[in-house]
């Protein structure tokens, strides 16, 4: 039973437009949320995180939104660039077991020229 779901396996976006990646979770105990980016043959790279006391966190072109009532988070990339083409994983944890990240299955983003 997957606790973290990324329902879109893939997403294609034109360069310069907004990319929106979505993630849903089932356990309301989760209170720390992260996004990772992964290129082929490399390890995941940390992008951005948000704690449950916030509903938005920005870092340059990347913004993460958290909707606790809907148990939903999203990653917005604006503007999208070809170098953003990668697989994006959301990950969640809760304070009681903060060492343990639970990952979604990933969304492959392709940014087209």
């Amino acid at each position, binding site marked *: 039973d997957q606790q973290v779901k990324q329902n879109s396996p893939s997403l294609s976006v034109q360069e310069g437009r907004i990319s929106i990646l979505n993630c849903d979770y089932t356990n309301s105990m989760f209170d720390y949320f*992260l996004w990772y980016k992964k290129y082929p043959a490399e*390890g*995941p790279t*940390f992008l951005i995180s948000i704690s449950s006391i916030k509903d938005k966190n920005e870092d340059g072109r990347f913004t993460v939104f958290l909707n606790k009532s809907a148990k939903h988070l999203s990653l917005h990339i604006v503007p999208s660039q070809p170098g953003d083409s990668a697989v994006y994983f959301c990950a969640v944890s809760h304070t009681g077991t*903060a060492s343990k990240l*639970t*990952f979604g*299955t990933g969304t492959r983003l392709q940014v087209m020229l």
Partner: protein
Amino acid sequence: DAGITQSPRHKVTETGTPVTLRCHQTENHRYMYWYRQDPGHGLRLIHYSYGVKDTDKGEVSDGYSVSRSKTEDFLLTLESATSSQTSVYFCAISESSYNEQFFGPGTRLTVL
């Protein structure tokens, strides 16, 4: 980039043989983790360590053991490899349990 290396980077082995994967860090981080990545599953935690000689199980620990005798090294052992353990294995480190984790480059293991 965080100083994390994994060895070997690629390995092909036969069913029933023992295999040890090594993760080495130069960041002096307390926490170290082993994950496996499989299609349709994302990354799943196998074992983690919260200090020298302190380890705990993750979501998919059956068939795996770990050891950490030094801060910088975290070993993952498959005592008797099976084909279901064919996967890409990632090591990760973090300063504390409340920080983001940084990942190594991965080891691709094939069990024939």
